[in-house]
Every structure is written in C-alpha cells, then in structure tokens.
C-alpha cells in the first residue's frame, strides 16, 4: 500500500488540478473529457459470527462498519485516457484494525487502440478482477475469488467487441492486499456477452515470492455466467478453482517449505426485478479451503480447526431498492455457515 504522504500529495493534486467546483463535467465533441466521480456508502455487516469468520472481519461483533467513499477523476484526450481514484475505506478485514484509511485505488494512463480495444498502464485492476464476481448478483458479494485484485506496475489490455470480451494483464512484483510480495502476476479472461447468456472464464498465475512472504506460486481458474430466463429473472453462477502455494515453515525472515493448497468456491445466485426500483436477490454458496481441512497433509496445527469444518455453506436473500438512479439501498440476510447475519447499506454515486 502507498504511504500516507504520497496520498496527501495526490489529494492536494486533485483538489488543485481541476477547477474550484467539486463536480465538473467537461467534455467536447471529440469525446475528450474530464470527469469527477465518486460515491459515498454507509452501512455494514450485522451480527458477525466468529464461528464462520474466515478472513472477512477484523473483529466479530454486533456491527462491523463497512462505510466507504471514493473520489476520482478520469479523463480522455485524443486516444489517451487517465484515471485517478482515491478510496476512503475501513480496514475491517481480518488482520486490519477497523480504522479508516485513504488509499489510492487506481492511478493509470491508458490508450485506446480502437473503440473496442484499449490498454492501461499503472495502478489498476488486473484483468481478471473486472470479472471475478461475474454471475454473482448479490450486492454484498458472496464467495470471494482470490484473484490479484488491484495491482501496481500493471500493463492491461482489454477488448470488448459486440459479444466477445477479452482481457489480459501483467503485474510486475504483485502484492497481496496486505502488502506482501506475491511475485509477477498474469491473469486474463475471455467471455461471451449477450442479453440472454453471458459467460466469462478467468485465469491467473503468479510467480511466488521465493521465500520473501508466505505466498508462493498460484494458479487459478474462474468461471462466471449469467442466464436471463425472462426479462425480470436472471440466474448466475460464479466459481473458482485455485491451487495456491503457501509457506508452511518460517526460519528467521525466510519463508520455507511451500506446499500447494487447493481452494474451491461456488456461488449460484438469482435476481428478480419486482419493478424498476426493487430487486430480490438470492444465493447459495459453497467454499472449500484446503487450509481448513484438518486431515490435509499441510494443516497448520498451530490454529484451532474451524468450526465449520473443511467447507462452509450458506445462503442469502436480499433486496435492492433504487429510489433514484444513483442511489441504492440494500438489505441482505444470510443463513447457514455465513460469517454474518445481515448486511445493510446505502450508497449514492455521482
């Protein structure tokens, strides 16, 4: 993660760069533009459950705040594009401290090769990250695919044709969101998009840290698909299969004896549009991490075995209410081996 002074400079830069107005939309007939965008969301997780907490929450308590704000500027001049996006987020994940932090989420310069194909350089989503939840209709996102997410030092190519989509990215010395080295990361996707059926397959591989962090090599394949049964009812599926090498021993600062852990996740979800404002969303979920499996050869016995056993299954039912175009109010309840009982959130975009 970037350090605070960098963030401060970047923030000052944004505020001084544009005009005095906080919301500026500048554009010309050539398509060149500068846009300020952002969102503010308030809400969080209710009744989080220690028994089923994998790495979701820094603490298991009645309410874990998940409030979030983002502010960004994006622009295009001729074929060149850029984007700077700052997130103000809670470090509410396991190992975090629950406090807010300001982080640069994206900072890249792009180039549009054609209208359908473009490239980006800098800190941006890796290619797979753009579709890692494809097929998962839930607002709170169900099963988490362990792809690389945002990375610095990334080159990304993406294409979007009428139906075919494809993308690939390369990240030099990628890092886990905790800042730990993971090695170079290559991932990509290819998909077919249509109104009725859409399918995306994502792939990822990384080079490993060679003893510097617990992260070794990794290979992952993900699948996302949507099927629109009728105009107001859709089904989705999202799944991944991952073989991730993790260190099982540490000597001094050196991580040693990496072993392969197989992780599997599956979400099946559906979305029903009651009307323009109301949606009903449900999901069933299955997750299986080898690290949870007591009888796997590489179980870490320094930890107590998880109460949910080697896998975790739950279901959800939720509503999204959109009182206006840029407002979403969401409520989701979960049942089964879920790390939380409910999720409630209000989000406004601009």
């Amino acid at each position, binding site marked *: 993660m970037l350090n605070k002074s960098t963030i401060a400079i970047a923030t000052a830069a944004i505020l001084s760069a544009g005009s005095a107005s906080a919301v500026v939309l500048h554009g010309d007939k050539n398509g060149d533009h500068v846009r300020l965008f952002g969102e503010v969301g308030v809400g969080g997780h209710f009744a989080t459950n220690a028994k089923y907490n994998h790495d979701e929450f820094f603490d298991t308590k009645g309410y874990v705040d998940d409030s979030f704000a983002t502010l960004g500027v994006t622009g295009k001049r001729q074929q060149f594009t850029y984007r700077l996006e700052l997130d103000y987020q809670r470090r509410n994940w396991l190992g975090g401290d629950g406090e807010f932090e300001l982080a640069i989420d994206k900072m890249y310069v792009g180039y549009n090769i054609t209208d359908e194909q473009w490239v980006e350089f800098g800190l941006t989503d890796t290619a797979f990250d753009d579709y890692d939840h494809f097929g998962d209709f839930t607002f709170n996102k169900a099963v988490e695919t362990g792809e690389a997410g945002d990375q610095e030092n990334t080159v990304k190519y993406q294409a979007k044709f009428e139906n075919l989509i494809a993308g690939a990215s390369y990240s030099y010395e990628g890092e886990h969101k905790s800042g730990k080295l993971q090695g170079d990361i290559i991932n990509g996707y290819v998909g077919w998009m249509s109104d009725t059926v859409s399918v995306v397959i994502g792939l990822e591989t990384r080079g490993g840290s060679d003893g510097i962090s617990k992260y070794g090599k990794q290979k992952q394949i993900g699948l996302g698909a949507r099927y629109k049964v009728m105009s107001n009812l859709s089904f989705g599926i999202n799944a991944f*299969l991952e073989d991730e090498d993790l260190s099982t021993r540490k000597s001094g600062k050196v991580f040693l004896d990496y072993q392969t852990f197989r992780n599997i996740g599956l979400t099946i979800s559906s979305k029903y549009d009651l009307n323009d404002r109301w949606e009903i969303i449900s999901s069933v979920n299955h997750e299986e991490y080898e690290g949870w499996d007591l009888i796997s050869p590489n179980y870490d016995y320094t930890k107590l075995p998880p109460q949910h056993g080697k896998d975790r299954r739950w279901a959800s039912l939720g509503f999204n209410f959109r009182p206006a175009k840029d407002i979403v109010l969401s409520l989701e309840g979960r049942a089964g081996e879920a790390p939380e009982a409910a999720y409630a959130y209000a989000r406004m975009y601009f």
Partner: protein
Amino acid sequence: MKKSFLSLAIASTISMGAHAGVEDLLITEMTQASDPKVGTIEITNTGTTELNLTGIEFYVHGANSRGKNYNNVLLDADGKPLLDGQILAPNASLVIVENRSSEEFRKSFAKDAKVIVSPYRPKKYNHLSLNGDDGFYIKVGDKIVDRVGASENKEKWATNTTLRRKKAVDGSAPSQSATFDASKWQNIMPMRTNTVGAPNLPDADAKDIMDIFTCPSDKSEIKSPSEVQGSGFKSPLIAEGKTESDEKVAVEGIISAKVSIPNEGFYLRNIVSDNDPETSDGIFVKSSAAKDLKVGQTICIGSKVAEFEGQTQLSADTAFSWNVTDTNIATEPTDIQVIASDNGSFDKTLERYEGMLVNLPTDIDPETDGNQDMRITRSFSYNFLQNSHRRNNMVAAYKRPNLQPNHLHVAGSPESKAAYEQNNDYRLVIESSTRSNGTTLPYYKGFNEDPHKNYIRIDDSLVNAQGVISQYETELIPGTNPRKYDQDYSLTITNDLTSENFIHNLPRTDKPDLKDTVTGDDFAIRVSSQNLFNFFNSPFGGDNNRFGQSRGADSHDEYLNQRAKLVEIIRAQDADVMALMEIENNGFGDDSAIAEIVNQVNVKYVDERARDYNGPNSTENRYVFVGFDNNGNQRLDKLDAIGSDAIATGIIYRPSKLSIERTRVIKMPQQKAPTIVNDLGEVIKDQNQEILENGQNYHRDALVVTFIVNQTGKRLTLAVNHLKSKGSTCWEEWQGVEFGDATTWNNRTAPDLDYQGSCAEFRVAGAVHLGEEMEDIPGDKIILGDLNAYGKEDPVLVLTENPRNKTIVTASHTFLGPKPQFNEDGSPVTISKTYGYIDIVAEKFKEKGKTPWSYSFSDEIGSLDHILVSPSLKDRVIDATDWHVNAAETGLYDYQNRFKGATNIATQIGTLSHKFYENDIYRASDHDPALISLSYKPGDADKDVPLKLPKLRKLIRVPYQIPANVKTQKGDVAVISMKPDNDEERLDLTQMVLPNVVISKDNTALINFEVFGAPSALFNVTVSIKRNGEVVEGSEQSFQADVSSRDSLIADIVEEEPDHTGGNGKAGSAGFISLLSLFGLAALRRRIRK
C-alpha cells in the same frame, strides 16, 4: 550465699532426687550378631523402688569400618534421650531393639517383654545398631555406671551371642560395673532370646552354653566338598523344591582361601580330589566368625547345605560350628578348563569350579584352535546393582567382551535373545578379596601406584589371575515383579597381579587408526563425531543456559581439566568437520560453550606460512563452529539455544576444507502422551517422588548443514543427532503394566523384552522424521551422532534397511510442533519404509573382520554413535572406524574429582586433580568417537553446482579434470579463461592473472591453474589443452566457479536460504499459456520438492 550458687544447689538436689535408686539399674542381657536386626539390650531395675529413667543416657559403643571407636547416645525420634519418661517398676525389665527388627523376632522374647524400639534417624547414628563388635553402657550425669563389652574394643567379640548377667555369689542382684568383666556374664552361643525381657538372672555359677559341633569319629559320616556339590547346579543333599538341607552334615576340607567378597567366609577344598571334573572340589562356608582360621588349616564343619543366590554353600554362625586341625597345606589353584560335557555352557564350566581356588589360564579351551581366554568387558567401576552387592569391581567375559545383543542382531530376533543368553552365560565378575575403596585395586599394586602406565581396558585378556569362584545375584531383570535378579559367577582374586596378567588386545593409541591415503590428485575429507561428555561453561564465565542446569564440571579446576582433555581429543582426530554431542545449549555467542571449545582447540594452530600449510600446527587447521540464529534476531548469542534440553549438538569445521551452502534445524518430534495413572486415575510417582511417566518426551533437534567441499562442486550434508536416551521411560514402556491402585512404582522396573531400553518407539518416530526431511535435501548426506540405538535396533533399521521385514512401530502421540506426526488420534504407525543409508563403520569393520563399538554400558559394549552415509557417498569412503579412546577406559581417568580420592595433584595446566587425571586424550568422554574419511577429486561437482574456489591471499586454484579420452603429451599447454557470470557487476579484473600451464608429463589427468587476483564472483570458466597452438579436440571444458573468500573464522550468522519452493517471482507466459489449456478444469496440482 549468692543466689546463683543457691539455685545450682537446688537443681543438683532435684536431679539427684530424680535418679534415686539409679544404682539398681543394670544391663542384664544382650544379644548381638553380625545382623543388627537381632541386636537387643535388656535393662532391669533390680531395686525395690520405681525408677524414672528421664535424664539417664544409654550409649552404644562400637567400632566403625576404619577401626575407630565411637560412642553414640540413643535418642528418640524427637532427639531426646531414648528412655526419657520411662518408669521402670521394681524387678522389671525393658528391651531396646533396632527399628528393623521383625515382629517374629520380637515374639521370640520372654512373655510380656516390654519392648522399646530405637528409631532410625536419617544421617544420624543415635540408634541401636549392634553388629558383633559393639558394646553398651549406661551414663548418669558424667559418669558411666554400667557397661557390657570392653571399652575401646574393635573386634567382632560377640557374633551370634547372648550374654546374661549373673547374680552375685550370694544370690543377690549384682552391682553396677563401669568396666566389663566377662566372667560376670553367662555366654550363650548361638544366640538365644527366650529370656530377653524377663528380669531373671542366672546364678553366679551358671555355665556358658556353647552349641559345639564335634566332628563324627565315623569317617563315613563325613562328606567332602565335592560330595556336597555334586555334578549339577544344585547340591544332591538338598531335596527337590527346597533351598536348604533338612539336616546338618559334617563336611571336611582344607581352607583354600578366606575372603570377604562377595560374601564373608572361607572356602574349603577336598583333602583328596575326587578326580571327577564334573564336580567341584570346593565349597564356600559363609561365616563372620572365622577370624582365627588360617588358609591351609583342615576344618571339619557341621552345617546345613544351602542354595543361596545360585551358590551351594555351608554356613557357620560361630566358631563352635567347626573343629580345626592346625595343618598348613597349600592349595594349588586349578586351571579353569572347558570340557565337552559343558555343551558350550560356560555357566556349566564355572559351576564345576564353584567354591574352588582356580586359575584363569591363557587358554581355557585347549580343544579349540587359538587361545580362549577371559576378556575384560567392564572396566573397573561401580556396578550400580539394585541389591546389597553394590561396589566397585570389574567384569570379564569368556573369549570376547560382551556385545550388546542388538548390536549385531535385529532387536527382538531369536539371535538377539541368544546373544543376551550367551552374555549371561559368559559373564564372570572379577572381585577383590577385600572391598575396594573405589580407587585402588587390592590385587594390583602396579595400577595403584601408576595407573597411567598400568591401565586396564575393555577387551584386555585377564590371564593367570587366581581366586575362588562364587555365585550371587547381580542385575535386576527389568519388568519382573516381584523382582528377580540375574545370577552370575564371580572370581575373587587372591594372588597379586601385575601388568603381565593384563594383555592389551586393544592397546591405547594416540591417534585413530583411520586411513586417508588417496590416489593421484585426490584429497581426503575427514568427518568425525564426538560426544563432549556434558561440556558446560556457564558456571565458569560462559553464557547461562535458559534451562538452569549444569551437568558438567563441579569446580573451576574440574572445568579446566575437562576442557583440556576435550581439546586434546578433538585435535587428535584431525577431522575437517566434526559433529559434537552433549555440549551446553547456551547458544552461539562469544561466550557459548561451542565458541569456547573451538577457541581452545584453535590456540595451537599458529603456523601461518604457506610452507606450513600441511603441518600439524598450521592455521589452515583452524575450526569455526556453525552458528544458528535460531530466534531470527540477526545476532548470534545465548538466546539462540536450540530445542528444549540443556545439552545440544553442534558442528565445527575447517573453512580451509569446506564452505557452508545451507544450514537448518530440523525440529524433531515430541511425545505428548497421557500421564501414566493407576486404576483409580491417580498419577503414579517413582521412587524419587517424581512422576513416573508424564508422557512428555523429547529428542534433541537435528542440526543440518550442507557444505560444498572446497575445490569441488560436491555437496556434503551432515545431520547431527542426539536421539532420546534409553535411560528414562516413554509412554510405551508402561503400556500393559498392571498398576492396580499403586501410587508409587519403581521406574527401573519397566519391561524391556527386546533389550532396546526405553523409548525405542519414540526413537523410531525421530528416525522417520529425520529420514523424511533428509529426503528433500539434494546431494551426498551423512546422518551421524548419538542415535541412542545399537546397530540393529529399530531406529537404525529405519534409516538403513530392514532386510528381515521386522514390524517396526512408532511411538504414540508424537507431534511435530503442534501437528500430529502420524495419525490424528495419536495411534502409532507401522513403518515399512526405510531410507537406505549405510552404517559405514559397521561395514568397514566387517571388511576388516572386526566389530565396531563406541560405548560401554554395564558390562556390554556396542555402538550408539553412528555414521550413516547415503548410498551416493559409498564409493567415496576410504575408511571408517571407531576409536576406542574413551569407552574402553575406566571412568577413573575422567576429569571428575568425585569418588577419586584426594585431589591434591598438580597437573600440567596448573590445576589440582586426582591421581588418575592427566591432560591427555584418554577418557575425555564416555563415548568413543566415530570417524570416516572421504575421497574427492578437485573439479568433481554435482549437477548445476558451481565449483567452490575459496581464495587464500588472493590466490585460487582452478581444477581442470582433463577428459579421459584426451591423452595429454608433455609440452601441451593448458589454457584457461574466466568471465564473470554477471557482466553488470563491473568487477575489477585488472589484477587477475590467468596462467597457462605447460604439461610436464604425458597422460596428465588433472591440472590446477593458480589464478591470482580473481574477485569474488560467479565465473564462467573455460579450459582446454592446446598443442602447437591448436585446441586439442575434446579437451575443452566449461563450468562455473564460485570464487569467494573463505568462510570467516569469526562466528557469523548462517541463515536458512530460501528453499525455492516459493516460486521465483516470475509468472512467465508459459505458465499462463499452460493455464489456458486447462479450460477442462483439469487438475493443476503438483508436488513440491525442496
């Protein structure tokens, strides 16, 4: 009158009053024998008034074993005079008895006897203990008023005797007497107790009662010793199922010896031999009353015949049991000889000589080729027996020292059991006729005067020693309840021995007999393993260990003496790398034990000039220890202690010969099993009030260092181990033992059916883990150290091979850190996999027709210290050996002062020590070192490993192994080019001199280029032969060379390197493309190998 005088007078009057009638208090009866449990004193109030005994003191007067008299007042448990508070009625008696006297014995007293028990007070002597040489007196105030037994007596004057006070001539009660007049007492032998406690006195003219034996006049009623002995293991005069004859028999013979060990008494031999080799012509007479008898006298004795601890014997409580004919007939010792009817049983042989005066000839079995003699199998030392025969002595064995049964035979196999039985059969304990004080051998003056010259070692032949053969109980048989003991024969030596009687089959040597001659350009690397016998420096200025223990020297002098011996033995081995065991686990700082020992060893290596490099004192010989920054704080200090024991293992090596590539610590399994409890669930304690078995057991962690042999690219990995000992138990030992509701249990009674000692299963668990972890390490490997397992015990079978497919089971409840080692529920696993290492010392000794051994326990020897090499290394082994410099010697020679007599002898290093100590190599430890020599050729390399070429004063030697198909000719020129592998480093190569070497001899196989000035870096080297300016075809060779400074002699942190299982950081498009091919969700998994 002053007040104080007045009060004194009053006090005096009161005290006089308290002792009114004390003149009527008499000692009236005494029983005494060599057994203190039957000693009694009867006192009687002969007056007419009641007598208060408060303030009257009663003393035992005796002589101790050093012939000094003592006077001990009898006290009660609270430390007050024993009879304080006792009121003795007129004409009443009371009896004082020893606390251990039996109820049965007390019942033999007169009816209604009043008995006072004299309690035993730990470490005090204020209790009644009469054993034949003691007297007794009554003291009132400062004055002795009555006495039995002469003052200043030192003799056994009253063995098995009752003395009764006689009445005065006029029939009245006798008066007190401060001196002992034997005529005033009726003397009864053997002892009678029927009047003890009754105030009856014999008349003044009562005769002594002596139960006197008279030899029958009818000679046919007299037996000879051989008739008593018969031809079997038991006397024919004892009925089946009994241990004693019903009647006394008269036996006549000539006294051949008088000894006090193993039991006090004398030996009778036939007046005329029966000339029957099947029967012994001698017999032992147990007696402590034989002080007036002389060897050579003829004795006719009346005694029952008994079998006691396997020995047929007679006994005599008093001198009235025999008639003496004062002859002086010498007894010639009989040579022990094996005969056909012994059927190979040496016990049978010895049984034929039981009770006889014998000689150990140079050849005990003339019918067999060569000399079969007796070999020392335990050097002079304490025998640690669990019974009354605890003392210092030696053990010999027929033909060869006793080998531990599992040393050559698979533990639990019939062969191992047979070897155990043979050891029992071949054993002969060597005793002295008087008890040794632990530092002198009564029969070997030369040893006592100069033990360094006249040493006795294991495997010495003991010849022409003369003495008498006895039999008695020795070792406790483990797991027997009630306890049973082995019965062994002993020879009590009666002649004076000299160095001629001890033939050294393994004489002392000042350096190990290890070949390291190599052919051609090869060079040898010597590896050894040495136990440092608990070298602790923390009490003497070293770093403290965090376990709060000190198992080593007890004083500064002892410490310096210990260190001096260890330094000598390490230097004498001249090893290039040495594994150390039993060194204090106080980390790797400058004041650690390992730093101390290395510094002291290095002191002698001072010759710096290049011309001295091969000399004995060259700086090239200096060692450095391998430090592990175990807590990862980037410092080597006392906090880096390894594992959970106060002792650890260590590795030292010579940077001139080897360079470290990688180090690591293999954490060994721990046992975390349930505590052993009885049927009620109560924790059972042992005889020391410690928990019998708490289920928590540990190995020392293994140190693993991978070296690159300098001038080669060959890896050599050493794993140094010290597995859990055999001495204390693990959970497995107590499974199947029925404890009932017992809360204490002797920890030495754990069953040991296969002679592997305790924790064999736990050592298997350790061996399995070690074998598994070592599999991940590439290159040549050596597992060495103290595996606490003999050659064919389970852990060694696991690491080597298990040709007989023995079922080998691990311990239960073993964990690697918090993780179960085998099954989740802790159940044990049967191990069928073996790891193929070669027990190289055993193999090399087998080629030489010898047996390796490195340790002596009890009277068995075997190897606990092993060198196990990977098969890849076998062809490099030049030689391997044990060096019998420690285990063969008596522990008297070690540095410890305890039990060694006076410590007033100045040593060469300015300390004081005992007379057995010298600053030499012998008995520097209790384990012998094991050594191996390996052969390398410069330029040998493992795949993808660069040659390790350390610089010495900017010079390196680059080896060039000329391909075999290139026949060099005199005058050819070898050329070399070296280029840094990484151009970007911009190395200064201006000083580098790449020489051409002109070949001086046809068919040269190896060239060493002396390259000067090459900077430290990885180089790509190309070498070739040029003839007439042209490169000879096929001669060009390319390889990588790692030019570096030598490993520092200053302790430096050696961290574990990444094992490259964590990727290399490069995702690579190939990986992604291969992923693209996996749309079918095919398995991605792979096996990771280090």
